[in-house]
């Protein structure tokens, strides 16, 4: 039996169709779906963390020393900036004040 006659053969098997269909779903569609879904979820989580950090960074501008701005100097009160940053980051990422995770 040569290859050409096998390819040209019109008779098939219903069981083969079902097995191939199931194999396509299990080994092709499901892994692709899992990959895309995981990628989407990770990107979404990263965006949420980025937004929280952006909000916190913008808020640290409140620690800028207004007096020095008049002298064309941009300086921050480091202690106040750190306090604002840590408190807002903990609030926005749902962490404890020491930035450790909240209990479940």
């Amino acid at each position, binding site marked *: 039996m040569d290859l050409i006659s096998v390819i040209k053969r019109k008779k098939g098997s219903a069981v083969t169709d079902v097995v191939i269909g199931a194999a396509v779903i299990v080994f092709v569609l499901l892994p692709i779906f899992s990959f895309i879904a995981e990628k989407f979820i990770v990107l*979404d989580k990263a965006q*949420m963390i980025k937004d929280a950090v952006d909000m916190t960074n913008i808020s640290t501008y409140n620690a800028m020393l207004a007096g020095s701005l008049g002298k064309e100097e941009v300086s921050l009160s480091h202690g106040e900036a750190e306090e604002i940053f840590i408190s807002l980051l903990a*609030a926005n990422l749902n962490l404890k004040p020491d930035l450790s995770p909240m209990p479940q």
Partner: protein
Amino acid sequence: MPVRVIVTGIVLVVTIAVLVYVVEFFLPLSAKSDMNVICRDTLLKMETAGGLSTNERLDMESELMTRGFLNIVANGTENEKQGEALRLHVEADYTYNKLTALFIRNNITQHMSYDKTSMSRKVIN
């Protein structure tokens, strides 16, 4: 031969049902993403305005309703001076139609919330 056609048809229907289920999986994720964007924009406006005004709250709620959210509850700090904390807390329900079995579709309601704190940048004399 007719058996093969029937079996092929059934396999095709099952494959299409799996594809539809896969695509519908992303609907609530996309809605939550949109909610985060809308609420983030509102919080940024709150920073410069010193709080959440009634007009701003109504604009945000109408935008969320356009996106498909229902039962929207929005609470935000109304007025704070520079350096004080501003909090925006929004809760809403997102209802969508989902394939739950091979030929059965049901309405699924997902409850979503947004809760972020920022700092006022408005100088009040």
